[in-house]
């Protein structure tokens, strides 16, 4: 058909119109129109008023309602009285032409009417049709939108739906979509309706085809009326059109984000015409909808793909141990959304300003290694500096290059996209793509996509690195945990730990060798204490200011170098060929604990092993050093605790909650006899001597202690030794709890009481011996030396037997300054030794200066000898002091204990060897006591015997003289008596005889009083009592002795109470002597650098003067010996004939008694003075203030 021919085909319908027209009411008078659904056609039914004709009008297709003149209508006019006639009505140019195919009878008469009616009808009809078509288009778009929304995920479905909608609404034969490649170089048919291509992949080229380029790049539609005449088509396309008989075609571009992504075509096979504006407009609308749908679908897909990328990268970053693989995976994922023909993934280390290619793919350039300096001016570096995604086209690149912001690397690209990889606010790399062909290859949307992928990639890379760090840390922790576990469970051997640490560190840091350098605080040097793979270094020492160590100490931080021997701080010790061949790089990190460097961990690399150390290695090794430091400290603490535990002098046993033994230290082993390894894990109850009963008792005690909050201390118990014996112990213990307060066991300290018990028994035995010795009766027959010797021999015998000694000898000197002592008593010596006994010479002991004197300077030399010590030195000196014949016999003596009497060493008790082994240290006090008892007994009796002997001599002499004198006087008296008898009384001769007799008697009395030394009571008449101030008297006495006290390094302190003393009737001369003796006595027996206090008390009847000193003790024996017996020896003492001490008290006592008073003393222990045991001694003299006249026979003035 030509272009003027009707375009609508006439279709006949069935004969059911009459029925369907029933009830039909036209809105107008003569026309009833009913719209009936019938396929996709519109029908108009009506009847012509007042005529037998009724008609059905079927409007088949109205391509363009506005162009009604081209409308062709098939109207069916029926004569209900006859057969149906078909009338063909053509409407054109506002004129109706009815061409009956078969003339109807009577039709002509009605023809004008029919035509008018039809015209009228069609006018209305056309309006309806136009409206309907518009509605159909809207509905079509609506349906399409709904369809798009419903099928938004699957783009192909959307496209197919669009094609179908277009075909249905536009009444075209075929519709299709071509989707273009991202670079718009070509397209492919993505959807069509109805399907004429099937599965055939049809590619539509763009480049070089004017029509397509116009469409793609200029975004203009293509309306071709007759394809066969189109010369712009290529042959392939033309063949396709011919094959499918496509004659006319309308193509509109599908534009998304200013970019043609596809084209939408409407094809007509039957007709050959241009498309109307409304058709084009509708197509554009459809294309816009589809673009939107495609955009949404793409967006959804992008989101989906990005999500998948995120998941995949996350998974890869966790599972893959190779960053390059992850980078490749990132590229593959990115390829789903952007063109990655040229793709780069670069990592960037901000601290080091270091670039590294993780992945690269380029069409033009082959990238191997780009120097860092060039990389720092690259596009990637620009993106990293800007920290924002960048899209750079030639003009942008030129501008930035002019500004010096960047330099081109490689071939010139049309468009370059780069997005920074940002993780945790740090730029860790850049991802970029570029196109060498089209500027339009990438747009802003691609940059967004790339940024999004870069974000995911950054997270993945960062995760990977974090994970690697975590893995590394985990490895380190595991290694340290294993090392610590080994230490805790097996041995606290610090060297084992160091080995572990160094080995782990070497492995961890991929070094060739490692060392641990420890600080020797005593010598103040650093010493290599452990080496791994470089044993030549072991034991080498470095000063704190030497080598890299000095840098580490100075900064307190780790140091590294990759060329040790070219560094200024390289230690000269290492600069020898041997080490030069083995050391290239070095990392040193300090191990710091509580602010102190306890060691340095050193990693080294060998020349040629390509191990390059960096700051990262230092940091990693420092991280490694922290747990290592803790482990070392723990190990040291454990070692220390273990050492403490094992070396503890007390037995320590720890139990768990089940009563099983978990710790058993060395002392426990020694006490109980079991080995630790044999007893660990055993039930403690089995080792109590009383078994379960004792176990329960101990548990109860511990529980009670726990609940009362009081420590369990010094509980007596008994454990079972290995030999089954009961071992008495003193138990102290506590419940052990963990950090949550849960009871985890108990710990107990045991003290072995066996030795204490033994010591106690020994002590009691010694006490008994001492008591026995002390209580040995002092034989009243000891009046001469032999008696004393016998007595002492018995004491020595007793001692030897009790102490199981081989022999004992007592050396003593009678004179107080003798340096040579004689054997006074002995026991256990062989006869030949007894017959020729040696002497003891103090000078030969070398304890005294070699002055050669035979007398000791008491006050000077007593200091040198000090106290006896139970050591070998003293034993040798004592042995050396034994001189004379048979001295060698005494070489094996056990010890010699000297004893002082007053300030002098007057005797020495030699203990022979013990028959059994004995510890002199433990016996020291006992032996001293024995020596004291025996020596005191010996010396007191020796002195007594000596004194007695002297007294007897004196008495004998006095008695003889007295006796003789009296006898002579008796003779004189007798003669005077005879004269008196012979002469007469009253004569001068008688008087003279009487006078002579009286003088003789008086002479006898004088002799008696002067020479015979009567008792004090008998001398009272010699005292002259007078009223004197006691205060003045005491002051005078004290003043007299002040200088002497000073010379002897004593100080006399006079108490204020002295000033309060009243007056009394005393003999001031004698009382001064008495008080003077008290003070002299105090000076003599007090210790140096002490003071002597004089004070007083008085009441109405008596006054007491007290002299107090700090020094030697005075006991009851002194009271017995020094005061009471003194009465008889007063005269001798006064004559200073008797050596020794203590006679002052006798004097004082005599004088006090003469004053109706008395002298006494009191002694209490005092704190040690100059290392010697001291006593506070108070000696007092009490006299009555008013003395009864009748009691006194002395003269009174």
């Amino acid at each position: 058909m030509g272009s003027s021919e009707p375009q609508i085909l006439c279709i006949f319908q069935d004969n059911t119109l009459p029925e369907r027209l029933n009830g039909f009411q036209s809105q107008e008078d003569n026309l009833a129109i009913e719209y009936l659904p019938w396929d996709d056609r519109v029908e108009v039914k009506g009847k012509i008023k007042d005529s037998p004709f009724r008609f059905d009008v079927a409007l088949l297709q109205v391509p363009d309602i506005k162009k009604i003149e081209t409308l062709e209508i098939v109207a069916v006019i029926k004569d209900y009285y006859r057969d149906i006639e078909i009338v063909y009505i053509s409407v054109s140019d506002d004129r109706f032409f009815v061409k009956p195919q078969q003339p109807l009878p009577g039709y002509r008469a009605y023809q004008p009417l029919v035509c008018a009616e039809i015209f009228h009808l069609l006018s209305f009809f056309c309006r309806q049709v136009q409206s309907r078509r518009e509605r159909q288009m809207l509905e079509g778009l609506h349906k399409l939108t709904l369809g798009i929304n419903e099928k938004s995920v699957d783009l192909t479905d959307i496209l197919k739906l669009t094609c179908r909608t277009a075909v249905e609404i536009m009444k075209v034969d075929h519709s299709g979509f071509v989707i273009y490649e991202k670079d718009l170089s070509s397209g492919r048919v993505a959807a069509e309706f109805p399907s004429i291509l099937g599965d055939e992949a049809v590619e539509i080229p763009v480049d070089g085809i004017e029509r397509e380029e116009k469409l793609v790049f200029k975004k203009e539609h293509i309306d071709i009326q007759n394809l066969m005449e189109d010369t712009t088509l290529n042959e392939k396309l033309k063949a396709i059109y011919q094959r499918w008989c496509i004659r006319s075609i309308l193509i509109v571009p599908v534009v998304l984000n200013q970019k043609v992504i596809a084209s939408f075509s409407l094809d007509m096979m039957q007709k050959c015409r241009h498309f109307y504006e409304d058709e084009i407009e509708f197509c554009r609308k459809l294309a816009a909808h589809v673009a939107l749908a495609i955009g949404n679908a793409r967006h959804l897909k992008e989101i989906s793909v990005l999500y998948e990328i995120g998941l995949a990268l996350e998974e890869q970053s966790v599972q893959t141990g190779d960053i390059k693989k992850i980078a490749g995976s990132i590229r593959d994922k990115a390829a789903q959304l952007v063109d990655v023909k040229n793709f780069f993934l670069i990592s960037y280390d901000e601290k080091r300003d270091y670039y590294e290619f993780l992945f690269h793919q380029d069409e033009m350039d082959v990238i191997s290694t780009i120097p860092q300096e060039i990389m720092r001016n690259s596009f990637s570096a620009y993106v990293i500096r800007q920290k924002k995604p960048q899209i750079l086209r030639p003009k942008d690149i030129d501008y930035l290059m002019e500004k010096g912001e960047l330099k081109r690397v490689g071939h010139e690209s049309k468009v370059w996209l780069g997005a920074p990889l940002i993780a945790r606010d740090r730029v860790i790399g850049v991802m970029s793509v570029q196109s060498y062909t089209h500027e339009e290859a990438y747009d802003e949307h691609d940059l967004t996509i790339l940024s999004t992928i870069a974000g995911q990639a950054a997270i993945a890379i960062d995760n990977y690195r974090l994970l690697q760090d975590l893995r590394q840390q985990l490895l380190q922790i595991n290694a340290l945990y294993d090392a610590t576990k080994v230490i805790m469970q097996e041995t606290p051997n610090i060297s084992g730990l160091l080995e572990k640490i160094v080995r782990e560190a070497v492995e961890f840091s991929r070094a060739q060798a490692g060392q641990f350098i420890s600080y020797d605080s005593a010598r103040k040097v650093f010493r290599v204490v452990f080496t791994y793979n470089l044993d030549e270094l072991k034991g080498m020492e470095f000063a704190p200011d030497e080598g890299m160590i000095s840098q580490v100490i100075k900064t307190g931080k780790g140091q590294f170098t990759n060329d040790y021997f070219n560094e200024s701080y390289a230690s000269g010790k290492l600069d020898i060929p041997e080490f030069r061949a083995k050391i290239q790089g070095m990392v040193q990190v300090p191990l710091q604990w509580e602010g102190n460097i306890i060691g340095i961990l050193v990693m080294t690399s060998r020349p040629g092993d390509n191990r390059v150390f960096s700051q990262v290695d230092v940091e990693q090794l420092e991280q490694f050093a922290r747990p290592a430091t803790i482990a070392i400290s723990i190990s040291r603490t454990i070692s220390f605790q273990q050492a403490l535990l094992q070396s503890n002098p007390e037995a320590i046993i720890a139990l768990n909650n089940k009563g099983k033994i978990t710790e058993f230290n060395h002392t426990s082993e020694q006490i109980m006899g079991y080995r630790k390894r044999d007893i660990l894990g055993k039930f403690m109850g089995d080792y109590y001597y009383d078994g379960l009963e004792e176990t329960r008792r101990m548990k109860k005690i511990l529980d009670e202690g726990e609940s009362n909050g009081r420590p369990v201390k010094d509980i007596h118990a008994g454990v079972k030794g290995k030999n089954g014996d009961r071992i008495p112990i003193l138990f102290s213990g506590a419940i052990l709890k963990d950090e949550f307060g849960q009871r985890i066991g108990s710990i107990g300290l045991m003290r072995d009481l066996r030795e204490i018990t033994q010591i106690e028994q020994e002590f009691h035995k010694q006490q008994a011996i001492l008591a026995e010795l002390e209580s040995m009766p002092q034989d009243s027959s000891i009046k001469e030396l032999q008696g004393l010797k016998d007595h002492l021999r018995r004491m020595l015998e007793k001692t030897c037997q009790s102490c199981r000694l081989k022999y004992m000898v007592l050396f003593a000197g009678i004179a107080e300054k003798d340096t040579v002592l004689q054997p006074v008593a002995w026991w256990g010596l062989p006869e030949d030794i007894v017959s020729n006994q040696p002497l003891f010479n103090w000078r030969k002991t070398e304890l005294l200066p070699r002055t050669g004197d035979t007398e000791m300077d008491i006050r000077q030399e007593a200091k040198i000898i000090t106290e006896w010590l139970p050591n070998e030195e003293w034993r040798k000196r004592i042995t050396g002091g034994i001189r004379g014949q048979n001295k060698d016999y005494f070489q094996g003596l056990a010890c010699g204990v000297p004893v002082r009497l007053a300030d002098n060493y007057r005797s020495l008790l030699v203990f022979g060897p013990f028959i059994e082994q004995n510890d002199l240290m433990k016996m020291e006090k006992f032996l001293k006591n024995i020596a004291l008892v025996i020596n005191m007994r010996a010396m007191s009796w020796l002195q007594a015997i000596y004194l007695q002997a002297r007294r007897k001599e004196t008495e004998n002499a006095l008695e003889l003289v007295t006796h003789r004198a009296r006898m002579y006087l008796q003779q004189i008296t007798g003669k005077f008596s005879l004269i008196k008898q012979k002469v007469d009384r009253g004569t001068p001769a008688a008087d003279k005889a009487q006078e002579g007799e009286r003088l003789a008697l008086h002479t006898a009395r004088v002799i008696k009083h002067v020479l015979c030394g009567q008792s004090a009571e008998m001398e009272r008449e010699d005292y002259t009592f007078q009223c004197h101030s006691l205060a003045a008297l005491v002051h005078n006495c004290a003043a007299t002795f002040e200088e002497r006290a000073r010379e002897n390094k004593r100080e006399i302190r006079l108490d204020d109470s002295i000033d309060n003393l009243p007056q009394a009737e005393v003999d001031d001369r004698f009382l001064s002597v008495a008080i003077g003796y008290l003070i002299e006595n105090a000076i003599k027996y007090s210790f140096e650098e002490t003071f002597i206090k004089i004070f007083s008390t008085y009441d109405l009847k008596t006054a007491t003067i007290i002299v107090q000193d700090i020094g030697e003790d005075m006991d009851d024996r002194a009271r017995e010996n020094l005061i009471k017996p003194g009465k008889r020896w007063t005269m001798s003492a006064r004559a200073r004939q008797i050596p020794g001490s203590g006679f002052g008290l006798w004097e004082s006592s005599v004088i006090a008694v003469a004053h109706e008073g008395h002298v006494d003393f009191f002694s209490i222990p005092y704190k040690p003075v100059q290392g010697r045991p001291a006593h506070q001694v108070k000696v007092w003299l009490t006299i009555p203030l008013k003395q009864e006249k009748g009691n006194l026979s002395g003269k009174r003035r």
Partner: protein
Amino acid sequence: MTVQRKRRTIFYFEDDVDCINEVVNILKEQYDIILAAHWPVIKIKREFPFDLVIIDLMIHRFSIDESGQEVENISFEGISWKRTGVDFLKRIRIEEYVEFGFSKDVPVIIASAVVDYNVKQEAHNLKISHYIEKPFTLGEIQEVIRKILAK
């Protein structure tokens, strides 16, 4: 007939004759006095006991008697010469010398120059009638003897 009372007999146990001779000579005017300290004089059996014994406590081993001869005085084994008088008295009290005129209860005067209080005390314990210290006067001894013999 009036029987003249026999003169009283006194034994003076004294070794130093010289010192006491003057007094004894005067006393002999009133009493029969034997002055000696050596055995030959003492160990003479007597029919009548002495009326009084005067004892010196300290007796030397040797002395000169009234005739000027050196004599060996009494001494007791194990007893000091200073206590010979005491021991002699003890023996009198145990009737050791009764046959020689020393009766158990004879009054005894100690006349001594002894100073030792203990010896004095010991003598007192042997029931002495008086203790007189040398030197004493004639009057003193006469008074003491008179008083004792008058009892």
